[in-house]
């Protein structure tokens, strides 16, 4: 059972204690961002303009939720494929102090190297479990880029969101280690 609870902002000591395969629960504030929001953030960095939010020590959740029904906090809110953010994540890790990412699927070597260099962690949430995860979101507000619709950046307050450390800052990668354990292929 995952019992360890972590809360952003994440410091280097916490990040260095995490290992690929660790199960944990996340409680605290996180920010959503998909492809379009990532592109805007990186365009601002390239243009040396200020960002709409301070990402130092923070966690980005790669998600585009379904609209909330009236009277509810949020709709279904599971992770999207992280590989599409690989083009942007190294810039954010280097320039903003971003310390964590939540998504699904493996990351490329450039991202993994940037995570090692800037001490950051990548968590997997269960893809296709958007209804389950929505129950962990206790508060939701749009921070910026509302014009992007489902790709707007939200600030979520989550309570005990179940996560798995997929790639740690030491180069440990459960997308390689896990399948190696269970492979029967010759």
């Amino acid at each position: 059972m995952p019992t360890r609870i972590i809360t952003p902002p994440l410091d280097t000591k916490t990040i260095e204690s995490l290992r690929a395969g660790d199960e944990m629960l996340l409680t605290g504030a996180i920010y959503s961002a998909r492809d379009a929001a990532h592109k805007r953030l990186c365009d601002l960095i390239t243009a040396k303009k200020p960002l709409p939010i301070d990402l130092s020590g923070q966690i980005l959740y790669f998600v585009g939720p379904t609209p909330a029904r009236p009277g509810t906090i949020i709709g279904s809110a599971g992770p999207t494929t992280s590989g599409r953010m690989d083009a942007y994540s190294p810039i954010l890790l280097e320039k903003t102090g971003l310390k964590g990412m939540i998504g699904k699927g493996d990351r490329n070597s450039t991202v993994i190297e940037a995570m090692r260099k800037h001490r950051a962690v990548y968590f997997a949430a269960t893809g296709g479990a958007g209804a389950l995860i929505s129950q962990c979101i206790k508060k939701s507000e749009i921070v910026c880029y509302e014009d992007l619709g489902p790709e707007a950046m939200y600030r979520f307050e989550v309570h005990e969101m179940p996560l798995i450390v997929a790639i740690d800052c030491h180069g440990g990668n459960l997308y390689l280690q896990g399948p190696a354990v269970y492979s029967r292929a010759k």
Partner: protein
Amino acid sequence: MREIEYQAVVKSVKRLCIDAAYFLPEDVTTALDKAANTEESPLGRTILGQCIINARIASTDNLPICQDTGFAVYFVDLGSDVHIKGGALTDAIQEGTRLGYSEGYLRKSIVADPVFNRKNTGDNTPAVVHIDMVPGDVLSITLAPKGGGSENMSRVAMLKPSDGIEGIIEFVVHTVVQAGGNPCPPTIVGVGIGGTFEKVAYLSKKALLRSIGSKHPDPAYAELEQTILAKLNASGVGPQGLGGRTTALAVHIETFPCHIASLPVAVNLNCHAARHASITL
């Protein structure tokens, strides 16, 4: 000639969109239950357990199973003795999609242009509509909303006839293993074999509609399905690509005759949230 009201089609399609998003078909929940009992990886069992609870929450709380409520893809069998009164069939399907995605609080995931204007159309249209003319006076509509994560990992290969069965197996297994955790395994693997470049892709998507646990009517293809499934589940990819013995829930093959020079093969992956809903009017 039997007449069906345009508005009756709109209403039915709207219902299909909402039902498909909220309610996971029983064959899929049964397959997930079975996998949760046989999976060797403790983490894999945890993930499969989350998928099962997720489907339960979605159906009781009227929440989409997955936030990616997909591209609306319709397979329509239109009886040649049916006339849609008051408008065109495709317009009715688009209108129903618009209403379903809006009233069901589903995510709108379609941009107007793939390159120069990636602006959200705001209502999840246009839908993709495949229409087959069939004998009779009945209209059947199946909706299979398709998420981007699994669709992006799908592939077509124009193999040489000499590549044979081994070539087919290698291509399908390679495609699924390369996809890793991206398509949200355990997946349903739709395989099209034969036909032409566009036909084989269509077949691979249509293969996803078959009920999990059903066998191909031709014993040779039924055996090929089992051979590929066993190889996929020996790959170690596992639930969410994090390691385990449940990489795919099923392999479904659809075939079509093909050219003397060709052996087209297509793989269309579907995530474990394998949603579809049908109605007959």
